């Protein structure tokens, strides 16, 4: 699913080049839920941006479903975001002028799928996300937890190969954090959705099948939790 070999990223913004990634090797199987943890400046956000096609790698091999991101043009990376990747951000990033339903619809429109009806599975997921009664509200009328659940629905509406979540619980209280992480874990189980989640929080990371630890632009540690990937008896956030 995802194969990364010797990935580097150098930002040439100032006079001194910044080596954000210094040779990352990672393999994520289809249907895997991987947490990436590490301190600020460890390179996890850069990894997120590269895998999401938001910025090109400098060198190395990055493959998503066999597609080489290193050789992609800007337009090809745009196409990748449209069809292969879904994002969930810490700040939800819903369009404030649109309702929850329209925020989901705009993702379908961009992907050129707006003329197709929503499939039954997705409608079930909306039920599962407990947002069906809030679909006609704009983000300012939704709680943080509701906004994040809408953002998750938007991220998966086009059935992306990879769901990238950047600190998805960073702005949420304990209760909503648990709800969102449970949803991510359930989506992973229900849809066999590959998820790569960036987090500072080791308790949030414990919801993943596997945790990858980054430092100074490299992966320094990988750990597998004791529980099986789809085990629902995960530790509680803040508990």
């Amino acid at each position, binding site marked *: 699913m995802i194969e990364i070999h010797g990935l580097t990223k150098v930002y040439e913004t100032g006079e001194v080049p910044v080596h954000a990634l210094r040779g990352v090797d990672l393999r994520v199987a289809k249907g895997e839920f991987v947490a990436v943890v590490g301190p600020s400046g460890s390179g996890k956000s850069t990894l997120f941006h590269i895998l999401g096609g*938001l910025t090109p790698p400098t060198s190395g091999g990055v493959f998503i479903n066999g597609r080489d991101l290193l050789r992609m043009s800007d337009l090809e990376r*745009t196409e990748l975001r449209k069809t292969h990747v879904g994002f969930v951000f810490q700040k939800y990033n819903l*369009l404030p002028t649109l309702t929850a339903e329209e925020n989901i619809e705009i993702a379908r429109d961009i992907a050129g799928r707006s003329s197709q009806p929503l499939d039954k599975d997705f409608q079930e997921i909306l039920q599962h996300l407990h947002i069906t009664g809030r679909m006609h509200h704009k983000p300012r009328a939704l709680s943080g937890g509701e906004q994040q659940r809408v953002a998750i629905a938007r991220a998966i509406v086009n059935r992306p190969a990879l769901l990238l979540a950047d600190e998805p619980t960073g702005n949420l209280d304990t209760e909503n954090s648990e709800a969102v992480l449970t949803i991510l874990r359930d989506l992973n189980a229900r849809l066999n959705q590959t998820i790569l989640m960036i987090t500072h929080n080791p308790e949030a990371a414990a919801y993943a099948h596997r945790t990858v630890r980054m430092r100074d632009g490299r992966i320094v540690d990988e750990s597998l939790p004791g529980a099986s990937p789809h085990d629902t008896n995960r530790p509680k956030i803040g508990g």
Partner: protein
Amino acid sequence: MIYRLVWENLKHRPVRTLLSAIFIGVQVTLILTIVGLSDGTFGEMQERSRGTGADIVIRPPNSTVIQFTGNMMHGKELVAKVRQQPHVKIATGVLVQGIGNFQSISGIDLADFKAMNGGFTYIEGGPFQHPNDLMIDANFARFRKLHVGEPLDLGNGFNWNICAVVEPGKLSQLFAQLQPLQEMYSATNQVSAVYVQVDDPANIPAVKDQLQKLLDDYVILTMQQLLDMISVDNVPLVKGFTNVVIGISLVVGFLVVLLTMYTAVLERTREIGILKALGASPGYVLGVLLREAVLLAVIGTVAGIAMTYGSKWLLHFVLPPMLTEIAVPRWWPIALAISLVGGVLGAIYPGVKAARQDAIEALSYD
């Protein structure tokens, strides 16, 4: 869905959208008012020329058609000569005396004038009784709030007495008797034009040719030729002025949309980043901005058309009576096109800026 986003974006900042639409609307109103004024004024001039009932007009050599410059000497003899021509039913000389502000008094022979077009419809008063009697049309009377029996100083040193208020649409707005007017202005036996009516419309071309042979270098026009010449296209000053207004409107529309879209792009940096993260191409982002500009231009044009009716109503009380504004629906699509061109040009730079925005930087924008 994109249209929903565009509409919601405009609704999101209602004051900004309203102000932008009003600014675009003002330039549309400006265009439609200028064109409406020139079309209305020239249309009324045509109507008044048609109202004379003449088929042919004779003007002095080298004279202009729109402005009655230059007089012909020996008016009586000239009219008599024209009357003798075959198929000529009536011929009457008219002295047009300018009194400033694009206004003029027409000296007429009331009996001949009546024979040619049935005469005036009197709203107040009746025919001339005294040499200083002046007949005015209803538009002039309304604007100057005048009635029969009141004196009128037209700033030409003569004390006129209003003897009648007549229905508009015949030759002029102010009428005096021909001979007293000639004497007042030391233009004894001079006429500015001779209006000719023939016995049968089929004879108009033949009579015109005949008169041209007779009067050689005089300007001789059929009424249709005269009407065709009373047009904005034949007055370079008006045409040029209209073009200048269109040019200014285009620039104003461009600047209004440029400013609106530029501030919108700055304000919506994060939203643009979100669209890009969702896979929106530069073309999609540019498309959103261009659609917003188009919608603004359409709303502004509709507002401008509505405001034109307001300005028309207001100008009705302000404009001198010889200026008439009419609605010009045939110019609505042109005004829309001008707004669209200005709007789209104004949206290109902010649109390209938005389309080129780095998604990561945009997403981190607060």
